[in-house]
């Protein structure tokens, strides 16, 4: 296991480094004057030169690259152009909002999907199955932001049960992370975005769980449990589901990484102040240091979660014999 762990960690660092370098290149080697990406054309000449020196943009590219990597290692993403604040401060402020939205939705989606998928598998060929599978497929096929628009139209505009956007009511201020988590207002604002994301995400665990359950249910130990006269609930949840969980756990870790980045649209629909919205706003207003920082943060979470999924798979599946790896 240690060997696998080290191997995966080395691999993780390699991918992180390449992704960071790609980001550097993406933001600097695009057609046109790279400094235009980093300096607003509205600055006068003197300010421009001063800022160029400040940002290190007057140095050759390779030197900029080493400065960039060194800054990244210190967790320094530079200064935002538009909001005279360090990018890292803005990002660390937005990340918890995205994390809460993602984790709450993923946990709900996987809880619902796992239980529903297990039962659908058990009732193969029933009318229930015929209804649930197309529904699960349909929620995976809909654009996430459109689901959000539908929920907004019904629950926010027509019924007025939930706010139409943001994370705090007008007049309120967003406090520290702990304050946010303790405030009812925050959770009330979270309802619709989280519901949208849950709806969108539940299809995958449901279908995965059903598929692997069908395989497991054919195994001999299930027949044995049936012969022992165990209840249906006990067979499904205690015997079969445990063995069918493996692909779902992997999908959960992958989903966590992917939806941090995928939340971009949901955060935009609900004006949820998360990292995806920071990225969209920064890109739209050409605040490139902020956009670059947000992009790297999203990518790093994705890469780390990919590795976690890999390790979870190896740790949980007895068939992936960890010790015997060549």
């Amino acid at each position, binding site marked *: 296991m240690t060997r696998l762990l080290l191997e995966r960690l080395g691999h993780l660092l390699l991918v992180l480094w390449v992704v960071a370098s790609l980001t550097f290149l993406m933001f600097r080697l695009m057609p046109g004057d790279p400094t235009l990406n980093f300096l607003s054309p509205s600055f006068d000449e003197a300010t421009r030169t001063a800022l160029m020196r400040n940002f290190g943009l007057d140095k050759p590219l390779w030197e900029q690259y080493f400065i960039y990597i060194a800054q990244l290692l210190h967790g320094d993403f530079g200064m935002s152009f538009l909001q005279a604040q360090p990018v890292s401060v803005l990002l660390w402020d937005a990340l918890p909002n995205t994390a809460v939205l993602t984790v709450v939705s993923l946990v709900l989606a996987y809880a619902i999907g796992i239980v529903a998928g297990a039962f659908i598998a058990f009732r193969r060929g029933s009318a229930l199955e015929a209804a649930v599978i197309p529904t699960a497929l349909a929620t995976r096929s809909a654009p996430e932001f459109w689901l959000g628009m539908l929920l907004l139209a019904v629950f926010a505009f027509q019924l007025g049960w939930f706010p139409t956007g943001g994370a705090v009511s007008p007049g309120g201020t967003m406090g520290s992370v702990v304050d946010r988590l303790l405030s009812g207002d925050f959770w009330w604002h979270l309802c619709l975005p989280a519901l949208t994301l849950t709806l969108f995400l539940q299809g995958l665990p449901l279908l995965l769980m059903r598929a692997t359950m069908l395989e497991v249910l054919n195994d001999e130990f299930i027949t044995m449990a049936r012969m022992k006269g165990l209840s249906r609930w006990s067979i499904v949840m205690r015997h079969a589901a445990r063995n069918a969980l493996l692909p779902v756990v992997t999908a959960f870790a992958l989903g966590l990484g992917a939806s941090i980045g995928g939340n971009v*649209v949901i955060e935009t629909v609900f004006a949820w102040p998360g990292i995806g919205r920071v990225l*969209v706003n920064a890109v739209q207003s050409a605040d490139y240091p902020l956009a670059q920082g947000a992009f790297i943060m999203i990518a790093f979470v994705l890469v780390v979660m990919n590795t976690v999924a890999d390790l979870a798979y190896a740790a949980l599946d007895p068939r992936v014999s960890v010790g015997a790896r060549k």
Partner: protein
Amino acid sequence: MRASRIRRFLASEPFAVVGVAIYAVIIAAALLADRIAPHDPREILRINRRIARYAPMSGDFWLGTTAGGADIASQLIHGARAALEVGLTAALAVVAIGTLLGLLAGYLGGWVDKVLTRLADIVLGLPFLPTMLVLAALTRPGVWTVIVTVSLLLWPNTARVIRSQVLSLRERAWVEAARVTGCSNTRIMFVHILPQVLPLAALYGSVAIGWAILAEAAASFLGFGDPDVVSWGVMLQDAYANQAMSRGAWNWFAPPGAAILMMVLAGFMISRGSEKLLFPKLGDK
């Protein structure tokens, strides 16, 4: 494939039939858009010389009009064109890249395989929508950015599956026979093995079409679409920006999303069905 087998398949696979039917409707709408659509989708329509804003559904405006006075039904019909264009182009590119790299990695093995696997890992570390946003912002927003992003980022899934298929195919006796008769590696790969993996590639292509359409919709919604193209994503962005939800204008924001949903769903349904058609052994479980 004999006709009787196809008929039996259609009867046993209602999902696939529905999926194909949905595609037939969308393709028909795209081909005949100029004839079916009652209005020009970009025209600012007027009633009694005043711009027809938020006109209700009627015989003249089947789904009503937008805040800008354009006919929603006509936009919806013309949107099928954009959807097919983006979807098919991107899916073809994904499948072509994925199949080629999967074939090379699986057949040649060694350092080619190692390099390509690493490359796939790196690509999987680039978040999909954010990468598309950044590329769109730094180059030129529009349909091509979507197509390029989808093909650059989604090939690893196809490549991985093709690779493992090729790994088993290349050990078969007929590959050995081809080698003995003096076939070059290139010939074995592209003449002997490629046709065997194409059905599998097509399966991944049908899902990639859906991905591309969802990507286009998301890009448009975030303001990085091509405003000159009439697409379902641009329609939704227009509706959102004009507060169609607070006005309860369901006739505006519901149909484009439903159209996207149907098209992506059709892809899933066809791929589930064709899985049985292409790999009969899998279906018997």
